[in-house]
């Protein structure tokens, strides 16, 4: 028989064997099969050779299988009668791998070495899209909110800085007003001094006009002619709150 035909035969016989042993065939590939027995998973590796295989090669296959042993509750190799005779039974027992023999003449599969059931590492079905959504939600719910809070805080800080700048500018103009007032006070002080001197000084020496420091911001404003020498100005200026 060619290997394709053999493979086809093996698959058919395996299906029958699974049925006979109340096993559920979950996967049936070209080189292996996975079955389920209650909660146990059973991995069956096809090692079907047309001729007697090389032992090293065989052991290598078994070693490879052994590295995956903990992934399944039970593990078997499915092989022909010729191959069974050269299998290292001690090794197989040691690694917990069972043997199934396919008998093409009688068209059956027999268990020749039991595989002890071992507990397996649990693997999870990870749905990447679910993880993505989950992360998205977390970002939406927490991270974005936090970022917005930070923005609000930055904005309010900006506003306060602007207010402070405005206050500083107002303070500058208040400072200018205060300087003006001091200028006026200085001039008034000088005027008072001059008047005092006039009152206390009985000699005939002329009163020296004090030079008054004029603010550099004072501008020369023309007084209209009709305002000059008008007695009404003093009369009106002397009006006070009645």
């Amino acid at each position, binding site marked *: 028989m060619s290997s394709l035909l053999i493979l086809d035969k093996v698959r058919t016989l395996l299906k029958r064997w699974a049925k006979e042993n109340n096993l559920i065939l979950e996967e049936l590939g070209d080189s292996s099969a996975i079955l389920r027995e209650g909660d146990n998973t059973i991995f069956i590796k096809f090692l079907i050779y047309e001729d007697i295989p090389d032992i090293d090669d065989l052991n290598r296959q078994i070693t490879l299988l052994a590295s995956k042993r903990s992934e399944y509750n039970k593990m078997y190799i499915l092989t022909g009668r010729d191959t069974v005779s050269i299998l290292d039974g001690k090794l197989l027992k040691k690694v917990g791998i069972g043997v199934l023999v396919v008998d093409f003449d009688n068209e059956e599969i027999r268990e020749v070495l039991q595989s002890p059931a071992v507990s397996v590492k649990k693997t999870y079905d990870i749905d990447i899209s679910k993880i993505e959504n989950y992360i998205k939600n977390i970002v939406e719910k927490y991270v974005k909110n936090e970022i917005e809070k930070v923005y609000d805080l930055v904005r309010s800080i900006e506003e306060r800085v602007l207010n402070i700048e405005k206050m500083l500018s107002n303070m500058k103009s208040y400072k200018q007003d205060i300087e003006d007032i001091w200028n006026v006070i200085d001039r008034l002080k000088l005027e008072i001094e001059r008047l005092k001197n006039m009152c206390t000084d009985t000699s005939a020496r002329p009163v020296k006009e004090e030079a008054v420091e004029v603010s550099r911001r004072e501008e020369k404003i*023309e*007084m*209209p002619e009709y305002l000059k020498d008008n*007695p*009404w100005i003093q009369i009106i200026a002397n*009006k*006070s*709150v*009645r």
Partner: protein
Amino acid sequence: MLADESRYKLKYTYAEDFGTGYFKYGPITLGEKPRMIQSRGLLLRDLPESIKMLIPKTVLERGVVVGDDVTKYLSSIRDAARNLRQPLKDGIVRKDDEDAWKIIKELIRFGFSQFYPEVANQPDFRGYYTVIALSALAPDYMREKVMELHREVDEEFEGKLIAAVTVIDQPFAVAIAEKAVTCSVIEAGHGNIQVVPISYGPIREGIVALNRGGAEANAITREILKDAGYGDLARDEYVIEIVKREIGLVPRNLKEAIRKAREDPKRFAIKVKIGPLVEIELVEQSWMRFLIGEIIFNPKHEEFTSYIQTGRLVIEDVVVGDMVFYGEMDLAEALIQSVKKTPVEIQEKIVSSIILSGGAFNWNVPPGLEDVACTSTEKIRIMMSEKVPDMADKLNVRMVKDPQYSVWRGAIIYGYALPTSVKWNERYKEGWYTWK
């Protein structure tokens, strides 16, 4: 006054003179002369839709124009006679005359809008100190309303235009401009004559009002034109104004002047060219020229009796509020009555300094007629000397130097000098009123 306040007021004092004929306005920085526009407004109603579309929206919303814009829109208005209004009659606006108040407000806004753009950018500008000159006879409601209108206009400028306002009587402003601290101001306008004694301020109890003015001179001119055969020209107010100014004379003594004019009419004859094609001439009726000037000073002459009795001339007393406006009282009598109401110790001072102001005193003496005609100042001196002979040597009567500008200047001086700390006093009607 503090140096800073003085400096500020030298830049930002603003005055308005609300005359019946002209509105004079402007800040102190204008110098000697205010700006002037006619005291009238054109109400923008009865406009064709096609014209409305051409008028700026803001102008249409205000609903009234003043100044040069009146001529611009006048031809588009359907009922010009109803919509072209002079808000002031004898210097007074009637309380319930909404159209007139609208025009007054527009005059105020118009005036300020010419100066505000320039000062708005000045870092020291905090608003104009505004003095409003009104007739001495203006009732309280008018003062209040005008101040209120200023507040409304200030709001249109976001409260940055006006620092405060105050009101002053026009005759008082004249006295201030003339630097006369104790005097009597006689303000003769188109509708009335106000005699106001002044002594460091107006003496309100001494105000005497006469119910006549330039309008009566116009009325007698109209009758003269009719009698002289110019009845059709007599209907035109523009013609009457020109004729009045050209032919009117003030007689030293009316009886004497009429006698001389009747004896020698050619001496007093006159021709007046109204336009390129129209001329009037008075020869036989030339004696009537003296009636035009005399009616201002003394309408009691028998010459006026026939006009009054036939209803061609109306001279009568009226009462406005609590003020009596005398129709026939002559000017000298009015002056004496006014002075009598002042404190005795200042009466001599007041009557010895008389200032005449107003267009109704604007009369010339043609060369060669000096023996019969005189100026207004001379007329007052003559009348007063006849009534109070003892005062003859002490009388000092003068015309204001600039009749058109005196009130505005006086208002500017008042605004400049009045300390900003003096707040409006309802009892004395003085001080700065502010809404800030």
